[in-house]
C-alpha cells in the first residue's frame, strides 16, 4: 500500500515548479504590460523616424524584422542553456523551459523569414534567394521544427527531455553560422550594423526605435514563454495525478 508515499513523492518533485508557478503568477501581468508599453512607444517612434531616402516606407519593416531575427537566435540560445540545465544540473524546470520555448522560437523564426522576404521583394526583387543567411535561418526553423517533432514523437516526458536536450546542444552550431554567415559568405543580406565590436554603424534616428521595439518583443517573448511553461507544468501535474488514480484502480482490480 504505497500510494500515499507515491503521491507525496510526486508532489515533492513538483515543489520547485510550484514555487515557479507562484512567481509566474506575479510576473506574467507585469511583463505583459511592460512589453505592451514598449511596443506602443516603439511603434510610434518607428513611424516618427525619418524614411530612408532610397528604401522609402519599406525601411519600417526593419523595426519588426530585425527584432524577430534577433529573438529567433536568442530563443535558441535560451533553449541551449536549458538543455545544459537538463543534462548537467538536472534542474526539473529546464526540461519544461526547453520544450515550451521551441514552438515560440519557431514562430519568431518564421516571422523573421516572412518579414524578411516581404522586405526582400522590393529590395532584391525576389521573395527568396538561397543565400547563406537566409538559408541558415531557414535551417534554424527546420531545427526548431525537428525538436518539436521529436518531443512529440517520444511520449515518456523524462526520456524526451534528455533526447531534446542533446539534440538542441548539438544544433547550437548553427547559431554562429547564422550570425556570421554575412561575413563568411558574400550574401545579398546586409552585414551586422548594430552588434559590432566597433559600435553600431546605423544612424541613431533609426537605431533608437529599433532598440525599443527589440526590447518590447523580448519582453513579449518572456511573457509568452512563462505562460507556456506554466501550462506545461500544470499539464504534467494532471498527468501525474491521473497515473496515481489509474494505479489505484489497478490495485483495486488485483
Amino acid at each position, binding site marked *: 500500500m504505497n500510494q500515499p508515499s507515491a503521491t507525496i513523492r510526486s508532489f515533492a518533485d513538483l515543489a520547485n515548479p510550484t514555487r515557479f508557478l507562484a512567481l509566474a503568477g506575479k510576473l506574467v501581468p507585469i511583463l505583459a504590460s511592460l512589453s505592451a508599453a514598449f511596443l506602443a512607444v516603439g511603434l510610434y517612434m518607428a513611424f516618427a523616424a525619418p524614411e530612408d531616402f532610397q528604401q522609402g516606407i519599406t525601411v519600417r519593416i526593419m523595426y519588426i524584422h530585425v527584432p524577430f531575427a534577433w529573438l529567433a537566435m536568442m530563443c535558441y540560445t535560451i533553449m541551449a542553456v536549458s538543455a545544459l540545465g537538463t543534462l548537467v544540473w538536472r534542474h526539473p524546470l529546464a526540461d519544461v523551459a526547453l520544450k515550451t520555448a521551441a514552438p515560440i522560437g519557431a514562430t519568431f523564426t518564421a516571422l523573421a523569414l516572412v518579414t524578411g522576404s516581404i522586405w526582400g521583394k522590393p529590395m532584391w526583387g*525576389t521573395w527568396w*534567394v*538561397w543565400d547563406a543567411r537566409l538559408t541558415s535561418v531557414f*535551417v534554424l526553423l*527546420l531545427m526548431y*521544427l525537428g525538436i518539436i*517533432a*521529436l518531443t512529440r514523437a517520444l511520449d515518456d516526458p523524462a526520456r524526451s527531455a534528455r533526447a531534446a536536450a542533446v539534440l538542441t546542444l548539438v544544433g547550437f552550431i548553427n547559431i554562429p553560422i547564422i550570425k556570421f554567415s554575412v561575413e563568411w559568405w558574400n550574401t545579398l543580406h546586409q552585414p551586422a550594423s548594430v552588434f559590432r565590436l566597433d559600435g553600431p554603424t546605423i544612424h541613431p534616428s533609426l537605431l533608437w526605435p529599433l532598440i525599443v521595439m527589440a526590447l518590447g518583443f523580448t519582453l513579449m517573448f518572456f511573457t509568452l514563454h512563462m505562460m507556456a511553461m506554466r501550462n506545461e507544468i500544470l499539464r504534467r501535474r494532471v498527468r501525474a495525478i491521473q497515473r496515481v488514480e489509474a494505479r489505484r484502480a489497478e490495485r483495486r482490480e488485483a
Partner: protein
Amino acid sequence: MLALFVRDVRLGIRAGGSALTGVLFFLAVIATIPFSVGPDLNLLSRLGPAILWIGALLASLLGLDRLFQADRDDGSLDLLILAEERHMLPLTVFVKSLAHWTANVLPLVAAAPFLGLFMNMEPAAIGAAALTLLAGTPAIAFVGAVGAAVTVALPRGGLLISVLILPLVIPVLIFGVSASYAAIAEPDPFLPPFLLLLGLTLFLAVIGPVAAAAALRYAAD
C-alpha cells in the same frame, strides 16, 4: 486486411513518420541542395523535379529493408504466413507495402507542391511533378518489398537477388523525372512517359507482391 493496413500505418506514424515529419524531411533535403549547387535560382527551378523525386525515393527507401524483418523479429511474420488461406500472402504483402508508402511517402507527395513553389518552379512543372510522384513512388515500395522479402528469406544470398531486383527502381525514377520534365520542355509530350510510368507501377504492383510472397514462404524457418 484493413486492420493490417491501419496497424502498419499507425506504427509508421508512432515512429514520427507523421505528415509533419514528412514535410520537414522534404524541406531538409531541399535546404541542402542550394548549399551545394549554389543559389542560382533558375538552375534550382530546373533541378526542382529531380530534387523532389530524389527526396521521395530516399524517403521510400528509408526503413524499407525493415518492412518484413520487423515482423520476423517479433514473430508476426509467422502468423501472417499462417493466415494464408484467409488472406492471400501476395495481398498481405501488397497491403504492407502500401501502408509503408502511405506512412512514409504520401506526406511527401502531398507536400511536394509547396516545395515546388519554394524552388520557384512553374505551376505546370509543379503539377506534373506531383502527379508523377503520386503515380510513380508506389512502384518503389512494391519493388522494395521484393528486396526486403528476399533479404529476410536468405540473409546471406539476399544481397545477390536484391542486386538484380532493386535496379528496377531506377527506370521508375527515370520515367518519373523525364515525364515531369516533358511537361515543361515544349517539344516532347508529357503523356507517353507518364503512361509508361503508370504501366510500370501497375506491373510492379502485381509482380512485386507475388514475388515477395513467394520469397517469404521460404523465409519462415
